[in-house]
Structures are given as C-alpha cells and as structure tokens.
C-alpha cells in the first residue's frame, strides 16, 4: 500500500462519514418537523394560563406533539443513531432556553403591551408565540450545534 492510495482511501472515508453525518442533521431539522415541534411548544406554553383542567390538557397535548414529532422523525429516518448524553444535554438546554424566551415574552406582553393574564390574547400566548418563532429562527444555529455533537461521536476519523 503506497501513501498516496492510503490518503485517497482516508479522503473517501471522511467524505462518506460526512455524508451520513449531514443526513443525520438534515433529518433532525427538516422543515415540516421543525414547524410541528414549534407548534407543540406553542400549545404547551400557551395553555399555561387556561383554567383547570384545560391547562393540563393543553400542556400534555403540546408536550405529546413535541415529543411525538421527535419519535416519528426517528422512526422515519434512514440513518438512526443511539441517543448520546451530549445530545440529551443539548435538547434539555434548548428547552430551558425556550422557557426563558417564553418568560421574557410573557413579561414583555404585560409590561409593554398591557396584555391581560387571561383571555385572548393572554400573556402566555404572546410568550408562547415568541418561543415558537425563536425555535424556528434558531434552526440554523441548532443544526450547527448538532453537527458538532454528531462529529464528536462515531467514526474513527
């Protein structure tokens, strides 16, 4: 085996590994799934101001939509991966970030727009809309972060 052939083989291996990694990231943030996950986030957050038991029902529906989309996406994917701790942390961090965005939206709705706590639109609805829009808008950044995680895991080179 000469060094030139070895280098050519390594280049081919890198290119093919990158193709799989790109597919994993592409599937994770395909537009229909991003929009449905954002809708789930909106429903879960917006229902917090509803009366009992509708706040629980709305919260459960939104969480089910958000989680269900993730499961459906994995099921349909042509490249499947084991869930790694860094990815779990990434998703939890992402959720925490959108809770912060929701809270900021809520406070802004009350302080700047004098939106009431109940009714239509409610403070929760404004916060939820802001969080859902932020979720969609942050997709390119999230895609880049997931790509870095995927690159760390799997494949020798």
């Amino acid at each position, binding site marked *: *085996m*000469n*060094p030139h052939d*070895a*280098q050519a*083989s*390594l280049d*081919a*291996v890198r290119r*093919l*590994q990158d*193709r*799989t*990694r790109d*597919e*994993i990231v592409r599937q994770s943030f395909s537009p229909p799934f991003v929009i449905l996950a954002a809708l789930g986030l909106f429903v879960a957050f917006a229902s917090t101001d509803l009366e009992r038991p509708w706040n629980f029902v709305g919260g459960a529906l939104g969480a089910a939509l958000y989680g269900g989309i993730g499961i459906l996406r994995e*099921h349909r994917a*042509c*490249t*499947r*991966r*084991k869930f790694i701790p860094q990815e779990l942390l990434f998703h939890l961090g992402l959720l925490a970030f959108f809770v912060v965005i929701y809270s900021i939206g809520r406070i802004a709705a009350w302080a700047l727009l004098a939106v009431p706590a109940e009714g239509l639109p409610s403070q929760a609805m404004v916060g939820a809309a802001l969080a859902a829009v932020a979720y969609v808008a942050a997709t390119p950044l999230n895609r880049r972060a997931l790509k870095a995680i*995927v690159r760390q*895991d*799997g*494949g*020798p*080179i």
Partner: protein
Amino acid sequence: MEPGFDEFLHVPARLAIVAVLAPADWVEFGFIRDSVETSDSALSKQVSALAAAGYVAVRKDQDKRGRRTFVQLTPQGRQAFQRHAAALQRIVALAHRPPEQPVREPGGGAR
C-alpha cells in the same frame, strides 16, 4: 504490512459501506446504495460478505411504506474499521516524516 491493516476491509466497496455506517447506529439500505453509488445487487453482495465476516448486522423492518432493510456496524466491525483507519493514517504519516539524518563520526565522514 502495517499492523491493523485489514485486507478484507480495504476492498473499496466494503470500506465505503463501513464508512457510511460508522457515524450512525442503523442505516437504511437505500441510503447506503445512494451514498456509495452502487446497484442494489452489488451492495447486497458486499453487505452479505461483511455480514458473513461478522462486521455488519442486517435487520428488516415492516412499516406502512413497505419493507425497509437496515444495516448496522457490529462492535467487531467498528473495531476493525478503527484499526484499519489508524493503519492508513500511519502509512500516510510515515511518508510525510523527514528522512533520518546520517550519523556523523567524530573524524568526519558519515556512517
């Protein structure tokens, strides 16, 4: 031959399949075929050879969209791939190493 170099795995079609599988857990047959740019029958032949060597596992799923075949790198296959990639990297590194300087004797000429 470089230690870890796997003649069986170094066949370009096999190395390509294993490279596609490495970053994932299970990969669909169609995605592998498109990535390595081969035909169903050629891929099937290579996957069978890799499975016979214990390097990959094959699973068939049935869902609404029909039958889907998934391929996975086994721990043995992953180890072989890592060793092989390391061997290739060593071959490249050796070629880039500067040649050793001749040792000079106190009296002058090189040994």
